[in-house]
């Protein structure tokens, strides 16, 4: 709240004064080490299950992580501005319903409409947050419910079946043996990474999250930056929704529920701080893959349902812990 105090260190506790790191070189290594927990996880599962390490299963993991990865990239941008977007799952639902209802009239039109709905929802969030200065948590908690309601009302709660084959081929097909969702997720994460790293907007995002008042006093249009990240999060949610629809072959008004926690989880595992200014879309991709690999591995091991709750939670914590320990070592 108070811009006036100590700069917030990261949630992934940044090295306080006195930690062995200095300067950017080490920072980079440290950032990259997000992958440590992920790698460890892969190693453990590979040791436990022979199917796990097969190339086709690795591709499968990427496929299963791609939807979350895309949502997580949008979430990362929001979180970097010190915001939060709980409405992503509902945007997935609403935009995919709108898209699916139009896909008979042509893929391009349907996709454009779906993306427009996603961006529109995000803009609405952004305007309430930036212009009316309402708390992001409340705004998106509210619109999570509102957008879900619209998704339900749109077809009176009915799913839309019989999704166009062409559409499915684009959003859940393969190119040279690689599933398109994987390619899309990679592209999204890479573009977002480049944006954060090399564009003015990217730096504005970090600045707004790192010190909003400093950003404002430097002439950055803080409101616009905020609106922008929510719009991007909305648009990416729509894109994730398309992949969801293409994969399951139907658009469901309930589609996407629960995505918010998954996405925040991936972002934080990937190094984002909920206190703003820190985050890396590529890290979030790795975070999503970590979560996906975990689910995949536990299923391959046929861990019983109730124990999966325990294992899932434990693995998430351990992955972050492993990462933390290796960071400290260095």
């Amino acid at each position, binding site marked *: 709240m108070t811009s006036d105090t100590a700069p917030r260190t990261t949630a992934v506790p940044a090295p306080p004064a006195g930690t062995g790191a200095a300067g950017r070189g080490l920072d980079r290594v440290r950032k990259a080490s997000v992958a440590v927990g992920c790698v460890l996880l892969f190693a453990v599962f590979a040791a436990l299950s022979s199917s796990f390490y097969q190339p086709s299963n690795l591709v499968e993991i990427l496929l299963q992580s791609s939807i979350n990865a895309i949502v997580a990239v949008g979430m990362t941008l929001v979180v970097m501005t010190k915001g939060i977007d709980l409405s992503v799952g509902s945007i997935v639902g609403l935009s995919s319903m709108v898209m699916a209802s139009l896909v008979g009239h042509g893929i391009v039109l349907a996709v454009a409409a779906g993306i427009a709905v996603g961006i529109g929802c995000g803009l609405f969030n952004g305007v309430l947050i930036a212009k009316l200065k309402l708390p992001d948590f409340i705004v998106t908690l509210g619109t999570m419910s509102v957008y879900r309601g619209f998704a339900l009302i749109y077809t009176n709660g009915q799913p839309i079946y019989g999704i166009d084959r062409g559409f499915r081929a684009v959003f859940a097909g393969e190119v040279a043996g690689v599933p398109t969702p994987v390619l899309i997720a990679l592209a999204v994460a890479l573009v977002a990474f480049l944006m954060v790293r090399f564009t003015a907007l990217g730096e504005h995002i970090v600045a707004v999250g790192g010190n909003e008042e400093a950003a404002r006093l430097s002439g950055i249009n803080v409101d616009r930056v905020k609106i922008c990240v929510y719009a991007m999060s909305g648009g990416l949610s729509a894109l994730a929704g398309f992949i969801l629809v293409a994969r399951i072959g139907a658009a469901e008004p309930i589609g996407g529920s629960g995505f918010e926690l998954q996405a925040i989880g991936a972002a934080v595992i990937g190094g984002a701080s909920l206190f703003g200014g820190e985050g890396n879309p590529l890290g979030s991709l790795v975070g999503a893959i970590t979560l996906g690999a975990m689910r995949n591995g536990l299923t*391959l091991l046929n861990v019983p349902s109730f124990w999966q709750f325990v294992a899932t939670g434990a693995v998430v914590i351990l992955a972050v812990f492993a990462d933390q320990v290796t960071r400290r070592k260095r």
Partner: protein
Amino acid sequence: ADSCAAYPTGTAESIDSSAVEAKFGAVPAPKRDLRFAYVTKTLINEFWQGVAAGVQSEAGKYNIKVDIQAAKDESSLVDQLNLAQTVLSQKPDALLLSPQSDTNLAPVVESAKALNIPTIVIDDARTEGASTYVGTDQVAIGSKAADFLHSLYPGGGEVAQIEGQAGSPNARKRIQGFTETLKKYPDLKLVASQPGDWDRLTALNATSNILRQNPKLVGVYANNDGMALGVFEAVANAKLEKQVAVVGTDGISEAKKSVSNGEMRATVAEFPFDEGVLSVQMALRLLACQPIPPWIVSPQAVISAENVGRFPNPPAFQN
């Protein structure tokens, strides 16, 4: 205003829904304007929409006004409890309930009893003390799925199960029925039983993973049709449609379509619309002082390619 207890006692344990008319006669038409309320688990699910549609349609026949309310999702116990309390405070003439769990609406039933407002619990969680329960035998559903797989593979093979949300009573019972009945067929081996959370994508992903570990799989039973459709997507992606038989539960329209297209092999159908219809009828019977038994056993059937034509879709729900 009614002179009798809405909570009759001392009758037979259960009665098959098809035998009700024979035993108690035609549904007594109401003598005044009635207002019912139905509090369900969720309406974001074709199954529950089906029940609601049945309620709506039957109530419409008798000019009964029904308020339909649903909890946020299939696991919010307290949200539904609060909802039902509020609805009850409006004193409807009858209260229809589809509880999240076997217990979470118990206090509502208790208060309704005190007000002599009949409570009809509709599939699949039961609540002790309610006027009556309209629903099918959930354990039998799981058994039927196992039987069906056995009929496909008398020689045995590896099968898997995709489970509904952990802790929900219907999932528990279907899992129980399926696993216990499988034990009768030692050659049918349950090699994996994994959570699907009632969610199509989760089921899809889980099935893909299971197929990887168990390439010889011949069948998958999913605790509901939404998940079964996801399971079929995974099977189709692996180009194993011929090898792996997918069996669901519910009998929603899309599943029937899938069955008739030769994709899913079967769905163990409940008849949600009929359950809705029945429950309105039971409410009317209770209001007319008929001593309705505590369990009205509603039908279930295995729908496969052979008989799918005999099960037309009922009208859809209007929010």
